[in-house]
């Protein structure tokens, strides 16, 4: 699969910046400590909150830190900047689809973050006994779910970038993303939401990014609900990729017809 060549380049690119790497790792360690302290403090004098035990919560939050780089907002906006500056001409004159170019390029960046920051964290937390690795079938389902989470977070960013291209204005996109992070379950599980917000979050695609994979890992999503959660992910993943392709080809058409 030739697109993996883009993944490789972007993966290797991560290793070019050593200072950046150590800063990222240091930041990740601090966030792990903060999250651990926060949840132990919250749970000090109480039993399960919204049906979630301290153990599950720690597992959700710590694994959240491990995969946060992999599932962080991708850098699709620079591509749109390239559109405006005309740099994209070179990318369009390649026998490769630009949407997939970006998807696989960004996958390289995500994998770099997972391997360079996530894996050391997972190892240390595992050795300390803070994180317990689930049984193999659960682990496999988690990986599949996390990959769908990746496509969702990429598509969210890509779609907003393409919409930005169509509206020629970036206002609003940046503000929306904070809400997306909240609805994705990045800060805490959706179980803590008030009922109406939970309904909204359950319908939207964004819970696919953090809540579903982490919920499966930590057991917050009950085994009986895993299948329907995966189905939700799958449907939205397909819808978002299809929407991306439609809007993207529209953008390319208007680029080639109007000349940018």
């Amino acid at each position, binding site marked *: 699969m*030739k697109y993996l060549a883009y993944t490789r*380049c972007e993966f290797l*690119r991560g290793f070019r910046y050593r200072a950046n790497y150590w800063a990222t790792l240091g930041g990740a360690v601090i966030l792990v400590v903060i999250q651990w302290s926060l949840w132990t403090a919250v749970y000090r004098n109480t039993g399960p909150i919204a049906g979630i035990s301290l153990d599950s919560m720690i597992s959700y939050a710590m694994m959240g830190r491990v995969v946060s780089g992999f599932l962080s907002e991708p850098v699709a906006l620079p591509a749109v900047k390239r559109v405006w500056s005309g740099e994209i*001409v070179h990318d369009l004159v390649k*026998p490769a*689809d630009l949407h997939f170019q970006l998807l696989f390029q960004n996958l390289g960046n995500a994998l770099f973050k997972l391997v360079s920051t996530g894996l050391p964290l997972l190892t240390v937390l595992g050795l300390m006994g803070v994180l317990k690795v689930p049984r193999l079938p659960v682990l496999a389902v988690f990986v599949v779910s996390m990959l769908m989470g990746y496509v969702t977070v990429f598509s969210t960013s890509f779609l907003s970038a393409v919409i930005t291209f169509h509206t020629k204005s970036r206002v609003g996109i940046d503000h929306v993303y904070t809400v997306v992070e909240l609805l994705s379950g990045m800060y805490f599980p959706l179980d803590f939401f008030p009922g109406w917000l939970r309904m909204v979050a359950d319908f939207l695609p964004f819970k696919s990014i953090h809540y579903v994979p982490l919920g499966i890992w930590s057991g917050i999503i009950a085994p009986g609900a895993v299948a329907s959660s995966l189905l939700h992910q799958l449907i939205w993943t397909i819808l978002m990729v299809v929407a991306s392709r439609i809007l993207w080809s529209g953008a390319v058409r208007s680029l*080639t017809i109007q*000349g940018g």
Partner: protein
Amino acid sequence: MNSALMNRGLSHASRPDERDPVIVVEELTRHYRVRLDGEGFVEKVSRFFKPRYRYVKALDGVSFTIRAGESVGYIGLNGAGKSTTIKILCGVLVPTSGKVSVLGVEPFRHRTRNARRIGLMMGQRTQLLWDLPVRESFDLLGRIYDLSRETYRANRDRLVEALDIGDLMDTPARMLSLGQKTRCDLALTFLHDPAVVFLDEPTIGLDILAREKIRDFLKAEKKRGVTIFLASHDLDDLEIVTDRVILIHRGRILFDGSQEELRRVTGDSLGTLEDTVKRFYREAELG
């Protein structure tokens, strides 16, 4: 051996005017719509709701045919329509009207198919991966163009030698000088054995020696049978590399013929191409 190379070999043997046409452009026009900004506050606001446009004719009925193995210089002042022509031929811009065919296909309808057989280099832009060693850019393009391992290695090694970039392969692109970067970009442009290559000001900003290296390289590629379409403001480039020149002015073709013919038209048989073209502009009262 791929079919593009074989075609090239065949056409190379025959006389120039009997070779297959590679690029056919007929009555090509391209208009750009420019939204007009109003004057004064009220007009600026009202134009938001009811925009008015001005139409710019970047290309206004351009026709030419380029046959396999030809090397053509495309001359024009800034804004004459050179880059627009190249973008249309590469398939990244749709013409407003007219016919275009590159190697038998309409580029904008078959952009990807077209992309496999053409090369594009823009002197002002780079396709090198900014922060990775040059080698990685070669590897990436080798994969993207689906080159077999042998073809890839052979082509890469040939170009590395021809452009003398062996010492640069392990350097990240961002640390290269402009001349080095240009040579690497040029090598990448020819990596997949394109039958036609479009070069938009390849020597812009380069010193005299760097320019000479690039001209020598292009002359050698021409001998190999690659069709070269070279747009440049550096007419020395064109004088040395190309046989035929096309002069475009405000979207129309003013001259299309060999350098000798252009000299005959202007009656300037001894001067450089630059002198000849200057005289041409003066006599046509365009300058």
